[in-house]
Structure formats: C-alpha cells, structure tokens
C-alpha cells in the first residue's frame, strides 16, 4: 500500500536534555520519507530549552514543540501532546508514542529503550501500517516482549501496586475491558481515531491534572501515572480493538 504524507504523527516526550541528539534526531531523519507529523514535549524548567527548540526546528521546521511541567512523567507529556494534536486539528491515521525512557534504576534500561524503539525502524514502519490496513480490529501495535498482563482473573484484581488506582480510573472513564494486556513502556502505534474518540469526551489536560509531579516510581505504592500507562492501551480494547505485537 502507498504511505502518504502525514499518515502518522509521532508524539515524543523528552525529559533529558541531551536525548534529542543522542536518541531521536537520527532515528527521525530515517523516517523523513514518510513526512510524519512531529510533536515534541520538553520539560518546562529546563534552562536550555530555547537552544534545543532551535535545534529541533532547524532539523524539522514543521515540528510542533511545547514545554510542560514535569507532571506525570512521560504520560503527562503525552497527554499534553494529545491536547496539542487535537487543538491544532491534526489528521493523521495513526499516532506513535515515544519518549526518552532511561529507567536509570535498571542496568538494562537502555536495552529496553532500544527494544521498544524497534517500532520506528524504517523497515518496520511499512509492515506496521500494512498490518493496520489489513486487520481492521488492530488498534495498537507494540513490541511483543513488552506486552504484559497483570490481571489475575481468579482474584479479579491486578497483580500490581496500582490495583486500586486502576479500578478507580476504569470506573471513572466507564471502560469496558475484556483484554487487560498493555504495552509496558508506553511506546506503541495506535489508531488516531481511538485517541480522538476518548479525548473528545475527556479533556487530555483534565486527565493530566490527577497525575503525580516530579520523579517517582510505582515500586512501593500505586500511582495514577503508572495506571494511565495501562489505561492508554485499554482505550483500544474499550472501543473493540485488539493489541498486536511485532
């Protein structure tokens, strides 16, 4: 199939200031043949934002860049980008979520990111778009090894510190979920219609309000931010779509 301009939008959250050059710039240059819509969120309080924005705009003049406070980590950044995507009336078929995941507490943090970034390898992009085109029920495509399921059917609860917050959010957004799988790391392709449909009813910025501020973990207690990491994928299931792995 033919891949047209602006067929997909890439929404990127950047926390670390050197990530643009270190992680993204070259990978995105490799995707220029597809002319994706680029939307990038930077950390509000970074002193070198102006220089970084100039560099990004020099490389990709059509890129949209915003800066938001460090709230909800990459999830908060992605919600702010969805707000921008909707308010600027973008019309892509698919949205790709990425961020400069470092997982500094893990020796294999960088390895995880490399694995997750396989979804934007130029030779995978066409295959992914083909898969969306041929399987109408595919809502999300992510890296197979990162598709997880924490739901314990017998106990009817999530085997995660986020159990209570997940239940709270599912009830709040009236989600009907039959498949609790999600892409850990929140980097995946998703049909934009799924995002448009949910966030036309629930403002992305209102969803962002409840997220935690600063740097934190869900290792000890659950967080709304880590719960949203799962909810993102369940939006597809709620609308009748499935997750596929590559």
């Amino acid at each position: 199939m033919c891949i047209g301009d602006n067929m997909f939008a890439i929404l990127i959250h950047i926390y670390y200031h050197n990530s643009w050059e270190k992680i993204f710039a070259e990978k995105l240059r490799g995707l220029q043949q597809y002319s994706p819509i680029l939307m990038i969120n930077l950390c509000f309080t970074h002193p070198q934002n102006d220089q970084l924005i100039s560099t990004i705009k020099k490389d990709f003049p059509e890129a949209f860049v915003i800066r938001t406070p460090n709230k909800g980590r990459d999830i908060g950044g992605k919600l702010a980008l969805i707000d921008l995507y909707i308010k600027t009336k973008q019309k892509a078929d698919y949205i790709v979520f990425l961020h400069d995941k470092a997982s500094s507490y893990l020796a294999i943090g960088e390895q995880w990111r490399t694995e997750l970034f396989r979804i934007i390898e130029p030779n995978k992009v066409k295959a992914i778009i083909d898969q969306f085109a041929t399987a109408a029920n595919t809502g999300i495509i992510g890296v197979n090894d990162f598709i997880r399921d924490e739901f314990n059917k017998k106990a009817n609860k999530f085997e995660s510190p986020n159990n209570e917050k997940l239940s709270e959010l599912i009830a709040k957004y009236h989600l009907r979920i039959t498949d609790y799988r999600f892409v850990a790391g929140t980097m995946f392709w998703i049909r934009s219609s799924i995002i448009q449909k949910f966030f036309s009813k629930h403002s992305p910025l209102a969803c962002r309000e409840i997220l935690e501020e600063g740097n934190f973990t869900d290792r000890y207690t659950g967080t709304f931010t880590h719960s949203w990491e799962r909810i993102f994928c369940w939006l597809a299931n709620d609308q009748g779509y499935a997750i596929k792995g590559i």
Partner: protein
Amino acid sequence: MLINKWLITESFSEIRHHQLPVALLLALDKEPVEISELYNTLQKMPQRSFSILLSGGYVPPEKISDTYVEKIIGTFFQPCYYLDNYHPVLFLDGSSLASTSFCSRLIEKCKMQGLQILTLEVKNRQGDFETNQFAYKLPSGYINYDAIVKNWLCQYLEKKNPSEIHLLLSETQRAPTDIINVEQSLAEQESYKIANLFHEKQKLIEEYEHELDLGKIAEKSAQLYLTMQKEQTLTNVDWYYREYEILPGWYKKFGHLIKVLTGKRTFRSLFSNNAKKYKH
C-alpha cells in the same frame, strides 16, 4: 529585559506580522471558538515573545468554561509564551480582575498542571506607584520612563521584588517619534543604568537558584534510583543463595564437571585460577 514593550492585538492572524512581542487581548466573557489558528501561528514563531492580556468584567462562576481555561493554559505551553523566572506572565486589564472567579479558576487549574503563573495587573495611569507590579497600558503616546524607572529602583532597594517593566502599546502607539527619542536617551540615564544592573543581577540569582533546585531534584532522583538498585541487588543475592548456594558442595562440583562436558567451561580452569575459564 528590564523594560519590555508589547503590542496589543485582538486578531490571531495579525500576530505573525508584527515585529514587537505581542500581547493577545482576550475577553473573559468571550471564549474563542477556534484556537487551532492561534496554536499553529505560535508554533511558527518560537523565538518571538507572546503573552495574553485578559480583559472584561464579572463572569458568573457557572459561566466559566473549563475549555476556555484549558485553551489559555495550552498557550502557556507554547515555546514563545513569555516567562519570568519560569512563570508564564499573564496581564490583567483591570484592578478587580485578579479577584474574579475566572482568574481564581485559571490559577487553580494551572496549579493542577504543575504551573505557577505570574499575574500582573495592568495600570492605566503612570503615577500609580503603589504596588510592585509594573505593567502599563497608557492612553497617550507619552511615557514617563524616568518616573517609572526611578520607582522601580525604589521598590527594588526596599526589597519589594518588583516585576519587570511591561509597556502594552496599542497599534497607534507602537512607534511614535517621541517614544523612540526618549528610549534612545534612556540608555544614557544613570537611574536606568543602575536599575538595569540590578535587574541583570536579579536574573542571574534567579537562574542560579533555579539550577540549584534542578540539582536538588536530580539528587533526590539519584537517591531513589540508588535505593531501588540496592534492593534489586539484595533480591538477586537472595535468589542466588536460595537457587544455588544452598545446594551441597559435591553437587556444585559435579555441576562444574557438567559445564566442562557441555563446553561451557574449560577443563584447565578446574585446576588453575589463571586459566581461561569460559569458552564464550
């Protein structure tokens, strides 16, 4: 900058055509239906300064729309939105505006987004020197820079933390000859030179304080990650003990023989610590 000049405009499409930083006039009771043009325009001018001037009277709480508030917050996220010490600057045209439900709601919603905004009440008279806020929207082309700068100096020396000086100009005021002449002579005035130095020093202090805050956050994160790594190491050691160390010695020795037989360890390494241990 100590003195900032803003050109007031009501039209989204006009913003790009002006050379001066732009203050977009928004009325409290008139929510812009369409915001995409504004956001798309602001994205084309990341290096220019932009701000919002809110005007209007009382809006009943029930009429305050969160969509309007969120549209304004979305502009604070734009790279060109003017920040003072990392706080978006919002001009309020009217002394009672700050106490309106709309502004309270906006400030509250900003906090929920992790943002602290700096609201500056715009004065319409040059002699109004009672507060530490220095934003002016003057009816005539005459601007008494001398009085404004001297008052700013007084406020600074009294440690009242004065805001930067903002002059919001209408289209007709943007470049009258008398303003340009006065501005050119301003740089020679002693009071201005001193005020400017104080302002630059203040900016440096704020920048260092900010970097210190960022350093504290980074250290806190590093401590958290270190704690997590230590816990992980303890878990790994515990796993090793229960899975391997707990086995009898003869069983472990037999295991090493199996490693040699399956090619995972060299035969010589069974007898010498100096021999190469692993084949791969």
